[in-house]
């Protein structure tokens, strides 16, 4: 029971306290590209959650022998891209065999949801923080769900801002960035931290 409790606490921590978007700014650019279409966005977020979960196990396993390699930081992205590439090709192969509209939709969204900052950034964090296998998986699930949550907030914010009277210079990207900034400050406060004055 304690393990289940810790598991869910870990996921909630990764979702809220260490939110991918609001506390680390990972995946802002891909989010801004897809967030306007809410249907596509939930598909995108769902794929990212699955990818971060599976790749967290793969990344943990791949970086175990490289723990003491001095020049690891030079090759980290290359190893990660190759790992994610293998995962991408496996998923693409299975999806091209499957039939139906949904499989085609997922197949089209797959390249953008595998090779983006949210996935690669989470995996790099996992490697840099030297997490254990279980905490890697929990972090992977939490990161994906955190991205979905952040996307939901930004989507809702953008929908409301479309109806508001925003000055011409602020329309579009600037107001969204300010909105994300204020939400990021709110998440900073949510964890109980106070700004020193």
């Amino acid at each position, binding site marked *: 029971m304690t393990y289940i409790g810790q598991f869910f606490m870990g996921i909630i921590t990764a979702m809220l306290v260490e939110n991918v978007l*609001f506390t680390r700014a990972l995946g*802002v650019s891909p989010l801004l*590209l897809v967030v306007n279409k809410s249907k596509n966005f939930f598909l995108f977020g769902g794929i990212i959650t699955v990818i971060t979960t599976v790749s967290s196990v793969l990344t943990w396993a791949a970086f175990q022998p490289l723990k003491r390699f001095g020049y690891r930081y030079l090759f980290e*992205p290359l190893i990660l891209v190759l790992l994610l590439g293998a995962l991408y090709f496996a998923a693409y192969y299975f999806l091209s065999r499957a039939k139906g509209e949904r499989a085609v939709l997922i197949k089209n969204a797959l390249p953008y949801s595998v090779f983006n900052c949210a996935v*690669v950034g989470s995996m*790099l964090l996992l490697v840099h923080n030297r997490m254990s296998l279980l905490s890697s998986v929990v972090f992977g699930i939490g990161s994906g769900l955190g991205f979905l949550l952040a996307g939901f907030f930004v989507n809702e914010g953008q929908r409301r801002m479309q109806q508001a009277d925003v000055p011409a210079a602020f329309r579009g990207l600037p107001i969204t*960035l300010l909105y994300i900034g204020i939400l990021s400050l709110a998440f900073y406060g949510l964890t109980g931290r106070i700004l020193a004055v």
Partner: protein
Amino acid sequence: MDIQTIRRYKRNYSLLSGILSNNPILMQGLVLAPAVVASTTLKNGLALCICAFVVFLPTLFVVSFIKGKNQIPHFLRMFFYALLSSVFFIPAAFLTKAVFPSSVDMLGIYMPLLVVNTIVIARAEAVAVRSRPLVAVGDAFFHMIGFAVPVLLAAGIREYFSSGTLYGVLIDLNSRNLTQVNLPFVGFILFGLMAAGAQLISQKATPAYRKWVNKRIILKASAESTAEQQSRNSEER
């Protein structure tokens, strides 16, 4: 109207648009993750820019050779761009570590993140796969300047307010040391304000540039027509 002149102005405009009207960070919202979090001091910002230059320019140069019959299938492209960038990241990280050893540790995960950034995909798909290598590199260069200017500006502002220094040199002795400006939310708000400024300038500057181009073309066309008339007159005589 001289079609050659119009084409030349259009080409120059699209090349230079990376700096302002098509700025990768402020107008398109690309490469935001490293820009928002890592631009905390001028040294970090400069390290990020050097790394980005060494990763992006060669990647887009190589991509510009692959076109026509050799075109890569659509599902392979993203993987190919990421793989190419991660190969060029090795010398880039080596160079950055040699120039700014402490900044590489401070940038942490945000330097390796450059390999999967949206700017490579955006510029590769928009320009590099359909242009000559020199044009692709020129386009990438101006977009990189468009990336470097806001990053360095934000880095300077944040360094000044957090420690009262600029590039490690003490400027303000009475600085209040607002260390919280290094948090991501300040980065978001700063880039949001800069994006609004860029949008405002671009909204004013683009029509002015078009007007100037039209004026130049009309002047040139009228000069050509008078020269033609003069030559015709002299032939008649």
